[in-house]
């Protein structure tokens, strides 16, 4: 059962921000590769978006979004009050032009800038 107060705050944020990203870390310093991928896509679009770092309240926010949108993993991108998806869906929709359509902007000519990975690859112990 999600915290009712947190849930109503989240609902207010989703209603008050046409483009809202729940992510791990911040757009300037993403703390997860999936969150970074969504930030990269959004940064290539000419669109303002709100971003919320979920890490300080990860489990309570999982419970809230499970109730609001039947989705528990982050990142989550909401457009006009609806959950569009996480990194996989956002990238697919970017490539197909559906994201630009959902955001009401022109499809950018350039592909998202690939930044170096934030984490080292898994270390192998032989």
């Amino acid at each position, binding site marked *: 059962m999600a915290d009712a107060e947190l849930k109503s705050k989240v609902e207010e944020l989703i209603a008050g921000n046409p483009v809202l990203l729940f992510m791990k870390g911040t757009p300037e310093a993403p703390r997860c590769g999936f969150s970074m991928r969504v930030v990269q896509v959004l940064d290539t679009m000419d669109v303002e978006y709100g971003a919320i770092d979920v890490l300080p309240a990860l489990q309570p926010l999982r419970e809230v979004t499970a109730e609001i949108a*039947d989705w528990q993993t982050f990142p989550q991108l909401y457009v006009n009050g609806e959950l569009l*998806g996480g990194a996989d*869906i956002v990238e*697919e*929709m970017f490539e197909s032009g559906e994201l630009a359509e959902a955001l009401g902007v022109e499809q950018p000519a350039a592909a998202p800038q690939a930044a170096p990975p934030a984490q080292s690859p*898994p270390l192998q112990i032989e």
Partner: protein
Amino acid sequence: MIEAALPGAEVEVVDETGAGDHLRATVRATQFEGLSRIDQHRLVKAAVRARFDDGQIHALSVKTQPR
């Protein structure tokens, strides 16, 4: 598991790290017809939720296509 939840689905799973806990699944199913991407993903995630809950899977990338 995905095939059991979506009868007739074509499922391809790639083990991205070799450890079996970071997977990439491509799923083609007639059940996706007419659904938004998020609803297609919800069906797949619901099918594998138990494996997340018991910790066998940590990350799953999903790509869905109607067929």
